[in-house]
């Protein structure tokens, strides 16, 4: 049996082999490569395209996230899943959830936008953030207006690294409005691999957020766990 999470930007597959967790990740449009030779009856799917791929059973990424996170943190209170096109906050304590899928400012798309502007790879944002000496204050309400602020800060003398750090803080503030007060907050999703964004979120929330080793595969793992 495999867990398959086909999200808006990446497809992730998880299976258990010799008692250990195995996984593969590719971009969404290449999802078929992941399941080549695998019978649809062996697949538990989740993610935005869960019903568009062959599957034995499917479940939403919100439920999958709960089961996947429990594997690493059984006492998690709040899960923040920062995806490519939306951000989901699940309060496990009362089974409540909220989703931001109307505005790019609090999703992975926003940081992709920043990386594209500076013509750098997405995974370089974190290391550049670490080099910032100052953090400029950047509007935290709209991704589009943030771009003009970003340019203003560059013209005003802030370095590229500092402006990237400022954008991470803008992103973190945006997300923080969605997160209820809790002691055990777990971050998952591909965007969480960006250490700069995580540092900014830790600072804004003022708590030590928890991150599983492979935050991007948690929903695929959750799908597998749910039906195991």
């Amino acid at each position, binding site marked *: 049996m495999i867990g398959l999470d086909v999200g808006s930007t990446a497809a992730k597959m998880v299976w258990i082999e010799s008692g250990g967790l195995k996984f593969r990740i590719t971009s969404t449009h290449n999802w078929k490569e992941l399941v080549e030779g695998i019978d649809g009856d062996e697949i538990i799917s989740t993610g*935005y395209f869960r019903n568009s791929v062959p599957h034995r059973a499917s*479940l*939403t990424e*919100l*439920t999958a996230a709960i089961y996947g996170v429990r594997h690493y943190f059984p006492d998690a209170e709040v899960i923040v899943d920062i995806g490519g096109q*939306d951000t989901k906050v699940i309060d496990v304590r009362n*089974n*409540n*959830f909220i*989703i931001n*899928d109307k505005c790019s400012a609090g999703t992975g798309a926003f940081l992709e936008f920043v990386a594209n502007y500076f013509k750098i790879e997405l995974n370089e944002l974190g290391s550049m953030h670490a080099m910032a000496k100052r953090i400029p204050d950047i509007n935290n309400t709209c991704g589009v207006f943030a771009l003009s602020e970003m340019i203003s800060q560059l013209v005003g003398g802030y370095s590229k690294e500092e402006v990237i750090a400022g954008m991470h803080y803008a992103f973190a503030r945006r997300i923080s409005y969605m997160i209820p007060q809790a002691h055990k907050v777990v971050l998952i999703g591909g965007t969480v691999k960006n250490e700069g964004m995580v540092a900014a979120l830790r600072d804004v929330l003022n708590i030590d957020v928890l991150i599983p080793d492979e935050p991007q595969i948690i929903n695929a793992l959750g799908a597998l766990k749910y039906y195991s």
Partner: protein
Amino acid sequence: MPVKKIGITALVPPELIFSCGVTPFDVNNVIPASRKYPGNKLCAWTAIWKDMLVKKEIEVDSLVVVAGGDCHNALVDGQKAAMSGIPTHFFFYPFDGDPEYLGSQLHRLSLFLGGIKSPEKFKEIGELKKQGQLLDKKRCSGKLSSSEAFRILISFSDLAGDLAGFSRIISDLQEKDIEVRNRVALIGVPPIFHDFHETAQSLDLQIVFDELPYEFIRHGGSNIQEIAVNYCGYTFARPLEFRIDFLKNELKRRRVDGVIHYTQFACHHMLEDEVLREKLDYPMLTIQGDLPGNTPQQVKLRLEAFREMLDRQ
């Protein structure tokens, strides 16, 4: 001479309208399937009926705008419709539930509509509303699908403009035998998506309570004085605590497992969400709609996740 068609923008006692020898037409009922995208709007509901009235895509002889005690955007969009030349009357419910005030509003409305000519309509509509309450009970026990129940109950605001025809539609309904799992109450204004109930049903959520349509069948009376007293209980026009007390009883009576609070973009009812979440002790999903059409994928995801959440409980 054809019977005059009176546009209504929210709940206006149909008993009074029919008894004045004219027929009501709820301008909201055409919106979910309209696929109209208004240029200048806050709430799409009011903006679309305003546009359609001004452009004569909805043709009415005159308009009654419920401008007090329910929809605040209607006050402005109703004036815009009036400025286009449609004879318009503004109707106000009392926030404090004063039946004397509502009685005076109803007298003014009857004068606008030409005075009461067929008082027997009060009783006739009362009988139809009893049938509506029976349908509402049937859907709670799975003898009627929630989508069919909604389609009929929402039409009680204007009774499809034809009492005899509407009675036949009710009589023609076939009983079903539906297993009612995941009993859900739908509170707030009705969703602007035309297939919302079917969508919820396909995701194994059975809507056993439609808050606003239920208001359309539970008030009545045999004359102006009686309906003035009775319609003072119209919860959307009253203080939030009044509505919450009423909701608590209904949710308990219908043994609901969860609540879906539909909110319309730019509607003041959105502000009530946090209070409803605090006061109603049920799992609650809040969804928001903006423009008419099919239920969007993002909303379907929320509904499915909510169903999974109810399953886990």
